[in-house]
């Protein structure tokens, strides 16, 4: 049911990737995503896939879990492929199949496949980030990375705190939604029957109690934070201090080397 949904799910494991500084992982992932857009051939994507594969193995995350993140965008990838195959044409394009006015060109298939691969690798790698980094570490790292922007007036700490709280309460709210849904089902509610309007109305018995309890929770949390003298980021010390370790240096060295190769391979044949 609802609780099976995987949103930024953390997979705890004793791996070198888990132990890396979250800042390293965030920046590497970000650079990787940018890099993906500079690759224009299969060899380059193969090299990029090798990098992701290495990270998955080093992170000791089961393949099944990583691949599962693709499920929601599978349709998008297929659509991209089909769309490209059908509409791309050009002076060099050769038609490989034709049904009446619909023509599939080799160039279109090629472009579609590249874009599909780009999307798939993008999702796989960013889900690997959340699988190997706990939400708290993630927001800690993000906060540190945003700190320079704080001088420009961006409330980095408040932003990170908001994210931590939001992430923390997603599973709680999902669990609660499921419980309320079951309670209403026990009273005879039916969420499957009827047209769109009827179905939307059937959601009221879930949404009203869910909002009531979310507001109550928010109130309680604010009170609990104030009771413990929370007053924002200024002058706050940390329990967990992020440290750039030797492992991070090694990770960066490997990454830079990998990325250079990927970029070199991926730019072959581009004018």
């Amino acid at each position, binding site marked *: 049911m609802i*609780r*099976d949904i995987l949103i930024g799910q953390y997979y705890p494991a004793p791996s070198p990737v888990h132990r890396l500084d979250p800042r390293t992982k965030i920046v590497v992932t970000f650079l990787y995503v940018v890099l993906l857009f500079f690759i224009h051939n299969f060899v380059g994507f193969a090299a990029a896939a090798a990098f992701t594969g290495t990270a998955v193995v080093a992170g000791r995350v089961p393949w099944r*879990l990583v691949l599962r993140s693709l499920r929601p965008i599978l349709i998008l990838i297929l659509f991209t492929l089909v769309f490209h195959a059908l509409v791309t044409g050009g002076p060099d394009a050769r038609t490989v199949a034709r049904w009446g006015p619909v023509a599939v060109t080799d160039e279109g298939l090629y472009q579609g496949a590249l874009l599909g691969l780009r999307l798939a690798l993008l999702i796989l790698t960013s889900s690997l980030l959340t699988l190997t980094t706990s939400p708290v570490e993630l927001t800690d790292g993000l906060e540190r990375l945003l700190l320079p922007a704080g001088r420009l007036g961006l409330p980095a700490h408040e932003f990170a705190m908001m994210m931590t709280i939001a992430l923390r309460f997603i599973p709680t709210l999902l669990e609660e939604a499921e419980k309320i849904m079951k309670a209403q089902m*026990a*009273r*005879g*509610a*039916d969420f499957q029957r009827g047209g769109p309007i009827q179905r939307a109305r059937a959601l009221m018995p879930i949404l009203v*109690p869910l909002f009531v309890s979310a507001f109550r929770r928010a109130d309680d949390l604010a009170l609990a934070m104030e009771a413990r003298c929370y007053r924002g980021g200024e002058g706050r010390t940390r329990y967990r201090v992020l440290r750039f370790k030797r492992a991070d240096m090694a990770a960066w060295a490997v990454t830079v080397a990998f990325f250079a190769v990927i970029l070199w391979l991926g730019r072959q044949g581009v004018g």
Partner: protein
Amino acid sequence: MSIVVENVSYIYRPDTPWAVKALDGVHLSIAYGQRLALVGGTGSGKSTLIQQLNGLLRPTAGRVLVDGVDIWSKGYDRRALRRKIALAFQFPEQQVFEPTVRDDVAYGPRMMGLSEEEVAERVAEAVAAVDLSPDLLDRSPFELSGGQLRRVALAGILALAPQVLILDEPTAGLDPRGRRRLLEAIARWHRERNLTIVFVSHNMDEVAQIAQRVVVMDQGRVVMDGPPREVFARGEELQRFGLGVPVTAQLMAALRRCGWDVPPAALDTDEAEEIIVAKAAAAGS
């Protein structure tokens, strides 16, 4: 006529690293008309088990038979089943959502497709059954006190006119008077409406007061099943499952340790008093 749980196992989030086996081959048979208490420590599987009884969760393995029919067989009407076997979750007041008490109690009957007259009848009856003043019917549920709101929620479930009522810790968070009134009301529904009661609790004093049969769960299995007097006589075993015994049974156990020859368990203070007075009189003469 009965509910039969046949070798039921249930796993949350199967095939993931977070899989949890909540039920492990449970056998249980509940005849209509019983007043049964389901007890067990946190995580023993009692909440999972009660959701199997009315088809809110589908067993990973095993069958649930109601009146001899598998409730997961093809074409079985599980919505109708949930009206017959009603379930009140813990803190049922969290499910209240309509703008007025009347509408909220009427939600279930309306979903059944009853006419407005029948709905009004059901509402009046249910509200009376939980000792709620009819003056409150047009108030917003969110203006009521916690105890009143709990009774509104329970009225919403009684309005389904079920044959079996499953209550998950119905007295949690109530003050002593609220507790006592609710327990009395539950006994009355059993008596007057011939309602089968399945009562989930870990308050043993309440269990002693309400149950004719006690089923003890531990780690997803049924580990004891019998009349309260027998179950509470096995205090040491219950303690191993993270449970206690009613204070009156504790008293009897203490007296036995002092060398008094008293029965192993008394279920309420009247019974305990009788036993002690009789013993004292015998010793004095």
